[in-house]
Protein backbone atom coordinates (compact mmCIF):
# COMPACT_ATOMS: atom_id res chain seq x y z
CA UNK A 1 0.00 0.00 0.00
CA UNK A 2 1.97 3.01 1.18
CA UNK A 3 5.56 2.56 0.14
CA UNK A 4 7.67 3.18 3.20
CA UNK A 5 11.03 4.31 1.92
CA UNK A 6 13.60 3.48 4.52
CA UNK A 7 14.65 7.09 4.77
CA UNK A 8 11.15 8.44 4.67
CA UNK A 9 10.03 9.86 7.97
CA UNK A 10 6.29 10.43 8.05
CA UNK A 11 6.11 10.93 11.80
CA UNK A 12 5.33 14.14 13.59
CA UNK A 13 4.85 15.12 17.20
CA UNK A 14 1.68 16.86 18.26
CA UNK A 15 1.45 18.30 21.78
CA UNK A 16 4.08 15.80 22.87
CA UNK A 17 2.24 12.86 21.31
CA UNK A 18 4.22 11.02 18.63
CA UNK A 19 2.09 10.34 15.56
CA UNK A 20 3.25 7.84 12.95
CA UNK A 21 1.76 10.01 10.22
CA UNK A 22 0.46 13.57 10.35
CA UNK A 23 -3.01 12.47 9.20
CA UNK A 24 -6.00 12.35 11.54
CA UNK A 25 -9.58 11.61 10.54
CA UNK A 26 -11.70 14.73 10.97
CA UNK A 27 -14.27 14.25 13.70
CA UNK A 28 -17.60 13.03 12.37
CA UNK A 29 -16.27 11.59 9.14
CA UNK A 30 -15.07 8.09 10.01
CA UNK A 31 -17.35 5.48 11.50
CA UNK A 32 -16.56 2.42 13.52
CA UNK A 33 -17.80 0.29 10.63
CA UNK A 34 -15.24 1.81 8.26
CA UNK A 35 -12.19 1.39 10.46
CA UNK A 36 -11.11 -1.74 8.66
CA UNK A 37 -10.43 0.37 5.58
CA UNK A 38 -7.98 2.79 7.11
CA UNK A 39 -5.27 0.75 8.76
CA UNK A 40 -1.85 2.35 8.57
CA UNK A 41 -3.12 5.71 7.38
CA UNK A 42 -3.64 7.77 10.46
CA UNK A 43 -1.40 9.03 13.23
CA UNK A 44 -4.28 9.27 15.67
CA UNK A 45 -7.91 8.25 15.81
CA UNK A 46 -10.65 10.82 16.31
CA UNK A 47 -14.29 9.67 16.49
CA UNK A 48 -17.35 11.85 16.08
CA UNK A 49 -18.02 14.48 18.72
CA UNK A 50 -19.71 13.20 21.83
CA UNK A 51 -22.03 15.12 24.14
CA UNK A 52 -23.15 14.62 27.75
CA UNK A 53 -26.37 12.91 26.71
CA UNK A 54 -27.55 11.20 23.57
CA UNK A 55 -28.52 13.41 20.61
CA UNK A 56 -30.97 12.28 17.98
CA UNK A 57 -29.65 14.65 15.39
CA UNK A 58 -31.55 16.51 12.69
CA UNK A 59 -34.20 15.06 10.40
CA UNK A 60 -33.15 14.19 6.87
CA UNK A 61 -32.18 15.43 4.34
CA UNK A 62 -28.88 15.95 6.10
CA UNK A 63 -26.43 16.11 3.24
CA UNK A 64 -26.37 17.91 -0.09
CA UNK A 65 -23.70 18.04 -2.72
CA UNK A 66 -22.31 21.42 -3.78
CA UNK A 67 -19.59 22.45 -6.25
CA UNK A 68 -16.47 20.60 -5.05
CA UNK A 69 -17.99 20.05 -1.63
CA UNK A 70 -21.00 19.16 0.42
CA UNK A 71 -23.22 20.71 3.07
CA UNK A 72 -24.18 18.65 6.08
CA UNK A 73 -26.55 19.14 8.94
CA UNK A 74 -26.21 16.06 11.11
CA UNK A 75 -26.97 17.79 14.36
CA UNK A 76 -24.28 16.05 16.39
CA UNK A 77 -26.13 12.74 16.47
CA UNK A 78 -24.31 10.58 19.03
CA UNK A 79 -25.16 8.13 21.80
CA UNK A 80 -23.94 10.37 24.64
CA UNK A 81 -20.61 10.19 26.43
CA UNK A 82 -21.26 7.09 28.55
CA UNK A 83 -22.24 4.80 25.69
CA UNK A 84 -19.57 6.46 23.59
CA UNK A 85 -16.91 5.48 26.12
CA UNK A 86 -18.32 1.96 26.37
CA UNK A 87 -17.82 1.59 22.62
CA UNK A 88 -14.47 3.31 22.47
CA UNK A 89 -12.38 0.13 22.33
CA UNK A 90 -13.66 -0.42 18.80
CA UNK A 91 -11.63 2.62 17.80
CA UNK A 92 -8.37 1.14 19.07
CA UNK A 93 -6.17 0.68 16.03
CA UNK A 94 -3.00 0.82 18.11
CA UNK A 95 -2.63 4.55 17.57
CA UNK A 96 -3.42 7.35 20.01
CA UNK A 97 -7.12 8.04 20.42
CA UNK A 98 -8.32 11.64 20.52
CA UNK A 99 -11.85 12.39 21.61
CA UNK A 100 -13.99 15.28 20.43
CA UNK A 101 -16.46 16.73 22.92
CA UNK A 102 -19.20 19.33 22.86
CA UNK A 103 -21.70 20.65 25.34
CA UNK A 104 -24.51 23.14 25.40
CA UNK A 105 -22.88 25.12 28.20
CA UNK A 106 -19.43 25.77 29.58
CA UNK A 107 -20.26 23.55 32.54
CA UNK A 108 -21.18 20.69 30.22
CA UNK A 109 -17.89 21.06 28.37
CA UNK A 110 -15.99 21.02 31.66
CA UNK A 111 -17.80 17.98 32.97
CA UNK A 112 -17.12 16.09 29.75
CA UNK A 113 -13.44 16.93 30.14
CA UNK A 114 -13.48 15.74 33.70
CA UNK A 115 -15.21 12.51 32.73
CA UNK A 116 -12.65 11.86 30.03
CA UNK A 117 -9.63 12.93 32.03
CA UNK A 118 -9.72 9.62 33.89
CA UNK A 119 -9.77 7.46 30.80
CA UNK A 120 -6.33 6.12 30.02
CA UNK A 121 -7.33 5.04 26.54
CA UNK A 122 -7.67 8.68 25.52
CA UNK A 123 -4.52 10.58 24.57
CA UNK A 124 -6.02 13.99 23.88
CA UNK A 125 -9.28 15.90 23.72
CA UNK A 126 -10.59 18.13 20.95
CA UNK A 127 -13.11 20.74 22.04
CA UNK A 128 -15.67 21.23 19.29
CA UNK A 129 -16.31 24.94 19.83
CA UNK A 130 -18.42 25.32 16.71
CA UNK A 131 -21.51 23.99 18.40
CA UNK A 132 -24.19 26.38 19.62
CA UNK A 133 -23.81 27.79 23.12
CA UNK A 134 -27.24 27.82 24.72
CA UNK A 135 -26.06 30.39 27.24
CA UNK A 136 -25.31 32.80 24.41
CA UNK A 137 -28.56 32.59 22.54
CA UNK A 138 -27.36 29.82 20.29
CA UNK A 139 -24.26 31.54 18.96
CA UNK A 140 -21.36 29.15 18.63
CA UNK A 141 -18.93 28.86 21.53
CA UNK A 142 -16.30 30.24 19.24
CA UNK A 143 -18.43 33.17 18.11
CA UNK A 144 -16.12 35.46 20.06
CA UNK A 145 -12.90 35.42 22.05
CA UNK A 146 -14.56 35.97 25.42
CA UNK A 147 -16.69 32.89 25.08
CA UNK A 148 -13.71 30.89 23.78
CA UNK A 149 -11.59 31.92 26.70
CA UNK A 150 -14.35 31.01 29.12
CA UNK A 151 -14.99 27.53 27.81
CA UNK A 152 -11.36 26.66 27.14
CA UNK A 153 -10.35 27.89 30.58
CA UNK A 154 -13.01 25.78 32.27
CA UNK A 155 -11.97 22.73 30.27
CA UNK A 156 -8.32 23.32 31.08
CA UNK A 157 -9.12 23.32 34.78
CA UNK A 158 -11.17 20.14 34.38
CA UNK A 159 -8.54 18.41 32.31
CA UNK A 160 -5.12 19.26 33.69
CA UNK A 161 -3.34 16.15 32.47
CA UNK A 162 -4.22 15.58 28.83
CA UNK A 163 -3.37 17.60 25.77
CA UNK A 164 -6.36 19.66 24.72
CA UNK A 165 -7.07 21.00 21.26
CA UNK A 166 -9.63 23.72 20.60
CA UNK A 167 -11.38 23.34 17.25
CA UNK A 168 -12.39 26.66 15.75
CA UNK A 169 -14.56 27.86 12.91
CA UNK A 170 -13.34 30.27 10.27
CA UNK A 171 -15.17 33.35 11.48
CA UNK A 172 -12.90 35.34 13.79
CA UNK A 173 -10.41 32.51 13.81
CA UNK A 174 -7.30 34.50 14.67
CA UNK A 175 -8.75 36.29 17.69
CA UNK A 176 -10.36 33.08 18.87
CA UNK A 177 -7.10 31.22 18.45
CA UNK A 178 -5.30 33.73 20.62
CA UNK A 179 -8.04 33.47 23.22
CA UNK A 180 -7.90 29.68 23.24
CA UNK A 181 -4.14 29.72 23.58
CA UNK A 182 -4.19 32.13 26.46
CA UNK A 183 -6.88 30.08 28.19
CA UNK A 184 -4.62 27.06 28.06
CA UNK A 185 -5.29 25.15 24.86
CA UNK A 186 -2.33 22.98 23.88
CA UNK A 187 -3.21 23.15 20.23
CA UNK A 188 -5.81 24.41 17.77
CA UNK A 189 -7.77 22.63 15.08
CA UNK A 190 -8.53 25.00 12.23
CA UNK A 191 -11.22 25.00 10.75
CA UNK A 192 -14.65 23.44 11.06
CA UNK A 193 -17.20 23.70 8.24
CA UNK A 194 -18.43 27.05 6.86
CA UNK A 195 -22.05 28.06 7.51
CA UNK A 196 -23.90 27.39 4.27
CA UNK A 197 -27.24 26.76 2.66
CA UNK A 198 -28.44 24.65 -0.23
CA UNK A 199 -31.72 25.01 -2.04
CA UNK A 200 -33.82 22.56 -4.00
CA UNK A 201 -34.54 24.89 -6.86
CA UNK A 202 -37.21 22.68 -8.41
CA UNK A 203 -39.16 22.26 -5.19
CA UNK A 204 -38.35 25.86 -4.19
CA UNK A 205 -37.43 24.68 -0.72
CA UNK A 206 -34.40 24.69 1.50
CA UNK A 207 -32.55 21.44 1.00
CA UNK A 208 -29.92 21.51 3.75
CA UNK A 209 -28.78 24.33 5.96
CA UNK A 210 -25.53 23.39 7.62
CA UNK A 211 -21.79 23.35 7.19
CA UNK A 212 -19.83 23.38 3.94
CA UNK A 213 -16.87 21.01 3.72
CA UNK A 214 -14.72 19.47 1.04
CA UNK A 215 -12.20 20.79 -1.51
CA UNK A 216 -14.24 23.94 -2.08
CA UNK A 217 -13.15 25.32 1.31
CA UNK A 218 -9.48 24.42 1.10
CA UNK A 219 -8.24 27.93 0.23
CA UNK A 220 -10.25 29.36 3.12
CA UNK A 221 -8.88 26.77 5.54
CA UNK A 222 -5.31 27.33 4.33
CA UNK A 223 -5.60 31.04 4.98
CA UNK A 224 -6.96 30.35 8.45
CA UNK A 225 -4.16 27.90 9.27
CA UNK A 226 -1.52 30.26 7.97
CA UNK A 227 -2.81 33.23 9.92
CA UNK A 228 -3.39 31.27 13.12
CA UNK A 229 0.02 29.62 12.95
CA UNK A 230 1.50 33.08 12.66
CA UNK A 231 -0.44 34.35 15.65
CA UNK A 232 0.02 31.63 18.27
CA UNK A 233 2.80 29.46 19.65
CA UNK A 234 0.85 26.24 20.07
CA UNK A 235 0.64 23.69 17.28
CA UNK A 236 -2.10 23.91 14.68
CA UNK A 237 -3.99 20.99 13.18
CA UNK A 238 -5.30 21.78 9.71
CA UNK A 239 -8.80 20.80 8.58
CA UNK A 240 -10.81 21.75 5.53
CA UNK A 241 -10.86 20.30 2.06
CA UNK A 242 -7.81 18.05 2.18
CA UNK A 243 -8.13 15.81 -0.86
CA UNK A 244 -4.61 14.81 -1.87
CA UNK A 245 -1.08 14.32 -0.67
CA UNK A 246 -0.06 17.73 -1.89
CA UNK A 247 -2.99 19.22 0.01
CA UNK A 248 -1.51 17.69 3.17
CA UNK A 249 1.81 19.30 2.28
CA UNK A 250 0.13 22.65 1.65
CA UNK A 251 -1.47 22.65 5.09
CA UNK A 252 1.83 21.76 6.71
CA UNK A 253 3.70 24.41 4.74
CA UNK A 254 1.08 26.89 5.92
CA UNK A 255 1.90 25.95 9.49
CA UNK A 256 -0.01 22.81 10.44
CA UNK A 257 1.68 20.12 12.53
CA UNK A 258 -0.95 17.54 11.64
CA UNK A 259 -3.75 17.50 9.09
CA UNK A 260 -7.28 16.13 9.22
CA UNK A 261 -8.96 14.35 6.35
CA UNK A 262 -12.73 14.61 6.39
CA UNK A 263 -15.18 14.70 3.53
CA UNK A 264 -12.77 13.49 0.90
CA UNK A 265 -12.42 10.20 2.75
CA UNK A 266 -15.99 9.52 1.56
CA UNK A 267 -14.85 9.50 -2.05
CA UNK A 268 -11.21 8.46 -1.88
CA UNK A 269 -9.18 5.84 -0.13
CA UNK A 270 -7.13 7.83 2.41
CA UNK A 271 -4.26 5.42 1.82
CA UNK A 272 -3.87 7.10 -1.55
CA UNK A 273 -3.64 10.49 0.12
CA UNK A 274 -0.92 9.24 2.43
CA UNK A 275 0.89 7.57 -0.47
CA UNK A 276 0.89 10.81 -2.46
CA UNK A 277 2.15 12.71 0.55
CA UNK A 278 4.94 10.18 0.99
CA UNK A 279 5.85 10.53 -2.69
CA UNK A 280 6.01 14.28 -2.33
CA UNK A 281 8.39 13.95 0.60
CA UNK A 282 10.54 11.33 -1.08
CA UNK A 283 10.87 13.44 -4.22
CA UNK A 284 12.37 16.23 -2.16
CA UNK A 285 14.09 14.22 0.54
CA UNK A 286 12.17 16.00 3.26
CA UNK A 287 10.75 14.45 6.42
CA UNK A 288 7.13 15.29 7.19
CA UNK A 289 7.90 17.24 10.33
CA UNK A 290 10.21 19.59 8.44
CA UNK A 291 7.39 20.91 6.32
CA UNK A 292 5.53 22.60 9.17
CA UNK A 293 5.53 26.32 8.55
CA UNK A 294 8.26 26.05 5.92
CA UNK A 295 6.82 28.84 3.83
CA UNK A 296 6.65 31.29 6.66
CA UNK A 297 9.08 34.09 6.08
CA UNK A 298 8.44 33.55 2.39
CA UNK A 299 5.58 35.99 2.64
CA UNK A 300 3.87 37.19 -0.51
CA UNK A 301 5.18 40.51 -1.73
CA UNK A 302 1.92 42.21 -0.86
CA UNK A 303 -0.44 40.79 1.71
CA UNK A 304 -3.53 41.95 -0.11
CA UNK A 305 -6.97 41.53 1.32
CA UNK A 306 -9.74 40.28 -0.82
CA UNK A 307 -10.30 42.25 -3.96
CA UNK A 308 -11.80 44.58 -2.69
Amino acid at each position, binding site marked *: MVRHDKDLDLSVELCGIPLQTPLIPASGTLSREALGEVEGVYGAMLPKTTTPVERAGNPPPRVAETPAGMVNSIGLQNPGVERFLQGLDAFDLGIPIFVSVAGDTTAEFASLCERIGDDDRISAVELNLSCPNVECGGLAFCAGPASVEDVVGACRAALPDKPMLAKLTNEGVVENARAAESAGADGLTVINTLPALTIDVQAQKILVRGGLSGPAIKPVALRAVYDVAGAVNVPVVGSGGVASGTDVAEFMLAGATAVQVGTTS*FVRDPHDILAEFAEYLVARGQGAARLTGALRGVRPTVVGGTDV
Partner: protein
Amino acid sequence: MKFYKVNVEERRELGSYTLLRYPWEGIVAPGQFVMARAAGFPITLDPFLARPFSYYDHDGETASLLFEVRGRGTALLDAASTIEVTPPLGKGFAVDPAPARAALLGGGIGVAPLQILGRHLEARGVTHDVFLGFADAGCSVVAGEFPGARVATVDGSVGHQGTVLDTGVELGDYDAIYSCGPNPMLAAVKLAAADENVLCQLSVEERMGCGNGSCNGCVVPVHGRGYVRSCIEGPVFDAEAVAW
Protein backbone atom coordinates in the same frame (compact mmCIF):
# COMPACT_ATOMS: atom_id res chain seq x y z
CA MET B 1 -13.70 4.74 1.06
CA LYS B 2 -11.92 2.57 -1.45
CA PHE B 3 -13.25 2.57 -4.99
CA TYR B 4 -12.36 0.02 -7.64
CA LYS B 5 -11.94 0.99 -11.26
CA VAL B 6 -13.83 -1.35 -13.59
CA ASN B 7 -14.64 -1.34 -17.28
CA VAL B 8 -18.20 -1.06 -18.45
CA GLU B 9 -18.84 -4.36 -20.23
CA GLU B 10 -22.22 -3.53 -21.63
CA ARG B 11 -24.53 -0.58 -21.71
CA ARG B 12 -28.04 -0.98 -22.97
CA GLU B 13 -30.94 1.40 -23.16
CA LEU B 14 -34.12 0.05 -21.69
CA GLY B 15 -36.59 2.77 -22.55
CA SER B 16 -35.90 5.71 -20.27
CA TYR B 17 -33.42 3.70 -18.19
CA THR B 18 -29.90 2.45 -18.75
CA LEU B 19 -28.62 -1.01 -17.94
CA LEU B 20 -24.91 -1.06 -17.21
CA ARG B 21 -22.79 -4.18 -16.61
CA TYR B 22 -19.33 -4.40 -15.12
CA PRO B 23 -17.14 -7.22 -13.85
CA TRP B 24 -17.54 -7.95 -10.15
CA GLU B 25 -16.77 -11.19 -8.38
CA GLY B 26 -17.88 -12.19 -4.92
CA ILE B 27 -21.24 -12.23 -3.29
CA VAL B 28 -23.98 -9.66 -3.68
CA ALA B 29 -27.14 -9.96 -1.61
CA PRO B 30 -30.40 -8.78 -3.18
CA GLY B 31 -31.17 -5.25 -1.99
CA GLN B 32 -27.58 -4.30 -1.39
CA PHE B 33 -26.25 -1.21 -3.13
CA VAL B 34 -23.03 0.21 -4.50
CA MET B 35 -21.56 3.72 -4.54
CA ALA B 36 -20.59 4.45 -8.13
CA ARG B 37 -19.31 7.22 -10.34
CA ALA B 38 -17.72 7.77 -13.69
CA ALA B 39 -13.95 7.33 -13.36
CA GLY B 40 -12.03 10.58 -13.07
CA PHE B 41 -8.65 11.73 -11.92
CA PRO B 42 -7.72 10.53 -8.46
CA ILE B 43 -11.03 12.01 -7.50
CA THR B 44 -13.63 13.88 -9.50
CA LEU B 45 -14.76 17.24 -8.22
CA ASP B 46 -17.77 17.53 -10.46
CA PRO B 47 -19.68 15.72 -9.22
CA PHE B 48 -17.80 15.34 -5.97
CA LEU B 49 -19.76 12.57 -4.27
CA ALA B 50 -20.38 9.10 -5.62
CA ARG B 51 -23.99 7.98 -6.10
CA PRO B 52 -25.83 5.04 -4.54
CA PHE B 53 -27.37 2.41 -6.84
CA SER B 54 -29.07 -0.85 -6.01
CA TYR B 55 -27.73 -3.91 -7.75
CA TYR B 56 -30.05 -4.82 -10.57
CA ASP B 57 -28.43 -8.17 -10.95
CA HIS B 58 -25.27 -10.15 -10.26
CA ASP B 59 -24.30 -13.53 -11.63
CA GLY B 60 -21.11 -14.09 -9.64
CA GLU B 61 -18.91 -12.48 -12.27
CA THR B 62 -20.81 -9.52 -13.60
CA ALA B 63 -22.82 -6.93 -11.75
CA SER B 64 -25.58 -4.91 -13.40
CA LEU B 65 -27.02 -1.57 -12.45
CA LEU B 66 -30.19 -0.07 -13.80
CA PHE B 67 -30.41 3.65 -13.59
CA GLU B 68 -32.24 6.72 -14.70
CA VAL B 69 -30.31 9.81 -15.76
CA ARG B 70 -31.37 12.53 -13.36
CA GLY B 71 -28.47 14.91 -12.88
CA ARG B 72 -24.80 15.14 -13.51
CA GLY B 73 -23.71 12.01 -11.67
CA THR B 74 -25.97 9.72 -13.65
CA ALA B 75 -25.33 11.59 -16.90
CA LEU B 76 -21.60 10.98 -16.60
CA LEU B 77 -22.18 7.38 -15.62
CA ASP B 78 -24.29 7.01 -18.71
CA ALA B 79 -21.36 8.04 -20.89
CA ALA B 80 -18.39 6.47 -19.09
CA SER B 81 -16.41 3.52 -20.35
CA THR B 82 -14.65 3.15 -17.00
CA ILE B 83 -16.44 3.56 -13.72
CA GLU B 84 -15.45 3.42 -10.07
CA VAL B 85 -17.42 1.31 -7.64
CA THR B 86 -17.31 0.22 -4.03
CA PRO B 87 -17.91 -3.35 -2.89
CA PRO B 88 -21.54 -4.23 -2.06
CA LEU B 89 -22.88 -2.11 0.79
CA GLY B 90 -25.71 -2.23 3.26
CA LYS B 91 -28.20 -4.88 4.22
CA GLY B 92 -30.56 -6.33 1.62
CA PHE B 93 -33.93 -8.05 1.62
CA ALA B 94 -34.58 -10.85 4.12
CA VAL B 95 -35.04 -13.96 1.98
CA ASP B 96 -34.06 -16.52 4.59
CA PRO B 97 -36.14 -18.17 5.90
CA ALA B 98 -37.83 -18.17 2.53
CA PRO B 99 -41.47 -17.07 2.44
CA ALA B 100 -43.96 -19.31 0.65
CA ARG B 101 -45.32 -16.65 -1.67
CA ALA B 102 -43.96 -13.16 -2.25
CA ALA B 103 -45.09 -9.98 -3.95
CA LEU B 104 -42.44 -7.67 -5.39
CA LEU B 105 -43.62 -4.08 -5.78
CA GLY B 106 -41.45 -1.64 -7.71
CA GLY B 107 -42.02 2.00 -8.52
CA GLY B 108 -40.09 3.71 -11.30
CA ILE B 109 -36.38 3.15 -11.16
CA GLY B 110 -37.09 1.39 -7.85
CA VAL B 111 -37.70 -1.74 -9.89
CA ALA B 112 -33.91 -2.21 -10.03
CA PRO B 113 -33.32 -4.48 -7.02
CA LEU B 114 -36.38 -6.60 -7.80
CA GLN B 115 -34.53 -8.39 -10.60
CA ILE B 116 -31.79 -9.80 -8.38
CA LEU B 117 -34.33 -10.36 -5.65
CA GLY B 118 -36.53 -12.35 -8.00
CA ARG B 119 -33.60 -14.57 -8.97
CA HIS B 120 -32.74 -15.24 -5.34
CA LEU B 121 -36.35 -16.09 -4.56
CA GLU B 122 -36.44 -18.34 -7.61
CA ALA B 123 -33.35 -20.17 -6.35
CA ARG B 124 -35.21 -20.79 -3.12
CA GLY B 125 -38.30 -22.01 -4.95
CA VAL B 126 -40.39 -19.08 -3.77
CA THR B 127 -43.45 -18.34 -5.91
CA HIS B 128 -43.48 -14.63 -6.52
CA ASP B 129 -45.41 -12.07 -8.50
CA VAL B 130 -44.05 -8.78 -9.70
CA PHE B 131 -46.03 -5.55 -9.75
CA LEU B 132 -44.51 -2.46 -11.31
CA GLY B 133 -45.61 1.14 -11.47
CA PHE B 134 -44.13 3.77 -13.79
CA ALA B 135 -44.70 7.33 -14.78
CA ASP B 136 -45.09 6.60 -18.46
CA ALA B 137 -44.46 4.21 -21.32
CA GLY B 138 -40.77 5.13 -21.64
CA CYS B 139 -40.07 4.12 -18.07
CA SER B 140 -42.16 0.98 -18.37
CA VAL B 141 -39.99 -0.56 -21.10
CA VAL B 142 -37.92 -2.27 -18.40
CA ALA B 143 -41.02 -4.23 -17.43
CA GLY B 144 -40.13 -6.50 -20.37
CA GLU B 145 -37.27 -7.80 -18.22
CA PHE B 146 -39.78 -9.03 -15.63
CA PRO B 147 -41.81 -11.70 -17.45
CA GLY B 148 -45.35 -11.87 -16.16
CA ALA B 149 -45.13 -8.61 -14.25
CA ARG B 150 -48.32 -6.60 -13.84
CA VAL B 151 -47.77 -2.99 -14.84
CA ALA B 152 -49.42 0.35 -14.13
CA THR B 153 -48.52 3.75 -15.50
CA VAL B 154 -49.53 7.07 -14.06
CA ASP B 155 -50.45 8.37 -17.50
CA GLY B 156 -52.29 5.17 -18.32
CA SER B 157 -50.32 4.58 -21.50
CA VAL B 158 -49.29 1.06 -20.53
CA GLY B 159 -51.17 -1.41 -18.34
CA HIS B 160 -53.42 -0.17 -15.57
CA GLN B 161 -53.78 3.52 -14.95
CA GLY B 162 -52.33 4.58 -11.62
CA THR B 163 -49.57 3.48 -9.29
CA VAL B 164 -48.22 0.06 -8.49
CA LEU B 165 -51.05 -0.35 -5.99
CA ASP B 166 -53.53 0.02 -8.85
CA THR B 167 -52.26 -3.09 -10.63
CA GLY B 168 -54.81 -5.14 -8.74
CA VAL B 169 -52.24 -6.60 -6.36
CA GLU B 170 -53.87 -8.28 -3.35
CA LEU B 171 -51.33 -7.92 -0.58
CA GLY B 172 -53.27 -10.36 1.59
CA ASP B 173 -52.42 -13.17 -0.83
CA TYR B 174 -48.75 -13.14 0.09
CA ASP B 175 -46.48 -14.04 3.00
CA ALA B 176 -43.91 -11.44 2.08
CA ILE B 177 -43.99 -8.09 0.35
CA TYR B 178 -40.77 -6.60 -0.93
CA SER B 179 -40.88 -3.07 -2.23
CA CYS B 180 -38.58 -0.45 -3.67
CA GLY B 181 -39.46 2.93 -5.07
CA PRO B 182 -39.73 6.56 -4.08
CA ASN B 183 -40.34 7.04 -0.36
CA PRO B 184 -43.94 8.27 -0.76
CA MET B 185 -44.75 5.07 -2.64
CA LEU B 186 -43.11 3.02 0.08
CA ALA B 187 -45.20 4.80 2.67
CA ALA B 188 -48.31 3.87 0.69
CA VAL B 189 -47.20 0.25 0.45
CA LYS B 190 -46.52 0.19 4.16
CA LEU B 191 -49.98 1.54 4.85
CA ALA B 192 -51.64 -0.95 2.52
CA ALA B 193 -49.70 -3.85 4.03
CA ALA B 194 -50.33 -2.79 7.62
CA ASP B 195 -53.67 -4.58 7.77
CA GLU B 196 -52.30 -7.85 6.45
CA ASN B 197 -50.24 -10.19 8.52
CA VAL B 198 -47.24 -10.27 6.20
CA LEU B 199 -43.55 -9.56 6.20
CA CYS B 200 -43.21 -6.20 4.47
CA GLN B 201 -39.78 -4.87 3.56
CA LEU B 202 -38.97 -1.55 1.99
CA SER B 203 -35.79 -0.41 0.26
CA VAL B 204 -35.62 3.28 1.13
CA GLU B 205 -33.93 6.12 -0.70
CA GLU B 206 -32.07 8.76 1.30
CA ARG B 207 -29.36 11.18 0.24
CA MET B 208 -25.98 9.69 1.00
CA GLY B 209 -22.63 11.29 1.67
CA CYS B 210 -20.42 8.26 2.10
CA GLY B 211 -22.23 4.92 1.93
CA ASN B 212 -20.11 3.34 4.65
CA GLY B 213 -21.66 4.71 7.80
CA SER B 214 -19.21 7.56 8.30
CA CYS B 215 -21.25 10.69 7.68
CA ASN B 216 -24.57 9.97 9.40
CA GLY B 217 -26.23 11.57 6.43
CA CYS B 218 -28.58 8.86 5.17
CA VAL B 219 -30.74 8.36 8.20
CA VAL B 220 -34.24 6.97 8.42
CA PRO B 221 -36.40 7.33 11.53
CA VAL B 222 -36.92 3.96 13.19
CA HIS B 223 -39.42 3.34 15.99
CA GLY B 224 -37.74 3.44 19.38
CA ARG B 225 -34.26 3.92 17.92
CA GLY B 226 -34.22 7.44 16.57
CA TYR B 227 -32.41 8.01 13.29
CA VAL B 228 -30.50 5.05 11.93
CA ARG B 229 -28.15 5.03 8.97
CA SER B 230 -29.75 3.47 5.93
CA CYS B 231 -26.37 2.66 4.38
CA ILE B 232 -25.50 0.39 7.31
CA GLU B 233 -28.78 -0.90 8.68
CA GLY B 234 -30.62 -0.54 5.36
CA PRO B 235 -31.37 0.36 2.67
CA VAL B 236 -33.91 -2.39 3.31
CA PHE B 237 -36.00 -2.02 6.46
CA ASP B 238 -38.99 -3.80 7.85
CA ALA B 239 -41.92 -1.56 7.04
CA GLU B 240 -43.17 -1.63 10.61
CA ALA B 241 -39.82 -0.44 11.93
CA VAL B 242 -39.74 2.71 9.82
CA ALA B 243 -41.31 5.64 11.64
CA TRP B 244 -42.94 7.33 8.65
